[in-house]
């Protein structure tokens, strides 16, 4: 029993008669793949499921990226300020540090899909696709923030202690030294790891299908559920994700090369 060995139906025969002659003379397996491609992409304008879904996936990823980086930087700074202070840190910093640790533990200790289900069905109860997208973006952002925070913290720690001392002796306060001296250098060190997180984030957004968000994966699922073109739909889906990730990888490597210019 094989997927490509479906018997030729009337509709398929009808479609075949409109195709070029080389396809009409091709083996049945090839004809079936082309028919599935036609059903998946062209019939009933099905391609719009992919393009609409792609839009949602990209929006969710970009939104989550922004939220994740903002949270990540904040938490990384709090955590390193707490850990690097020689005296006993002030009470406010200790509370902030404890909260950050709690956030990291909870977010990194539970699966993404569970966080999403809780956010969607317990915390935010979104209505309609717009609110679903917002709910998913916030959840992904909160999730990503925890990982970004630890990546950035590792970057900050990778910068020599002397840089901080130099900044402070030049009259910068702690925040200014962080902002103008430490973070820019740290970013360069952690770029590969951040890129990795971005790629993971992009693919992870497919989890949002469980709450009913019409993202790229959902688009393919909808096509499968109406046309049953399992093979071609899911392979098309995989190809789109792959192209997205390849484009991101390329973009990141260009960015990394730019950053390296200052090393010479």
């Amino acid at each position, binding site marked *: 029993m094989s997927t490509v060995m479906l018997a030729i139906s009337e509709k398929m025969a009808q479609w075949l008669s409109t195709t070029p002659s080389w396809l009409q003379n091709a083996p049945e397996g090839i004809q079936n793949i082309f028919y599935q491609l036609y059903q998946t992409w062209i019939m009933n304008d099905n391609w719009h499921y992919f393009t609409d879904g792609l839009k949602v996936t990209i929006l969710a990823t970009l939104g989550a990226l922004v939220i994740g980086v903002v949270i990540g930087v904040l938490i990384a700074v709090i955590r390193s300020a707490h850990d690097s202070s020689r005296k006993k840190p002030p009470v406010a910093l200790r509370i902030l540090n404890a909260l950050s640790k709690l956030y990291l533990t909870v977010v990194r200790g539970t699966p993404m899909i569970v966080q999403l289900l809780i956010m969607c069905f317990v915390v935010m109860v979104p*209505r309609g696709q717009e609110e679903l997208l917002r709910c998913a973006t916030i959840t992904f952002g909160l999730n990503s923030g925890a990982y970004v925070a630890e990546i950035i913290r590792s970057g900050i720690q990778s910068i020599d202690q002397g840089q901080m001392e130099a900044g402070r002796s030049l009259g910068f306060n702690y925040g200014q030294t962080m902002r103008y001296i430490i973070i820019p250098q740290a970013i360069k060190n952690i770029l590969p790891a951040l890129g990795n997180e971005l790629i993971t984030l992009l693919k992870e957004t497919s989890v949002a299908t*469980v709450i009913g968000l019409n993202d790229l994966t959902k688009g393919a699922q909808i096509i499968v559920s109406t046309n*049953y073109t399992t093979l071609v739909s899911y392979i098309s889906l995989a190809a789109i994700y792959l192209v997205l990730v390849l484009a991101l990888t390329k973009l990141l490597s260009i960015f990394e090369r730019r950053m390296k210019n200052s090393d010479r």
Partner: protein
Amino acid sequence: MKVNRKWIAALVIGAMVFGAGCSSSTEETSTESAAQTQEETTEEAAEEEVQEEVAENDTTSEEVAAENVTLEEGMLIMSTNATFPPYEYYDGDTIVGIDADVAAAIADKMGLTLQINDMEFDSALAAVQTGQADMVMAGVTVTPEREENMDFTNSYATGVQVVIVPEDSDITSIDDLQGKLIGVQQGTTGDIYCSDTPENGGYGEENVQKFSSGPLAVEALKNGQVDCVVIDNEPAKAYVEANPGLKILDTEFAVEDYAIGVAKGNDALLDALNNALEELESDGTLDKIIGEYIHE
């Protein structure tokens, strides 16, 4: 393995209790190419799905041409989505219901051992086409699009699509659904009808929210995330019974026939199933099974 299966079943039930439904992991199985061997399919199934053997191989019963019509010798593999009472649902760690019992009776007639694989509805339909299951019984309605890609037996039960709304809802009949947010189980006929364009009698894709299981759609309805849920009558009754504050509209959304789906072109199995169904119908077993689950 025994312990492992029970453990997985317990997890799945736990997840359902929390209204969380199944994970989306079954997509992976669907993408498996058809070239894979039988062993791989079985392994995959063992890993990802809860399986149970409902019927024992009864060699004394009359055998209805069961030779070489199934994927695995001596086995009848059925794919389903066990979130659909009373057609299929979990009772403890076994899948029971009309479909499960009818399947067991059919397997008995054919002298085969029944194995039920639980997965999401979409995947259950795809499984028979990719050679992961012999047949799908999941309250499947025959539609032209489905007939295009798989073959169906004669109908064994009638399903009715109904609308679930909160008790204080301003939706009083099907005519009020226009412009409302409708929750459905993805890939079901309720989904297909509602997602159609208004010209074709639907409500437009933008007004339909597709969930991976019925309970998730009902959960969203309770939260006010959707205005109503369009789903099959019998599971709807079970959901409403379990969730006070919901009711089913008196007017029916659509009436339709349930049938068993098999891979396109698998006439030998189709005939064997039709024969078995006919026998079950004439000796009253079918009515008895349905009567056990549906009291009217």
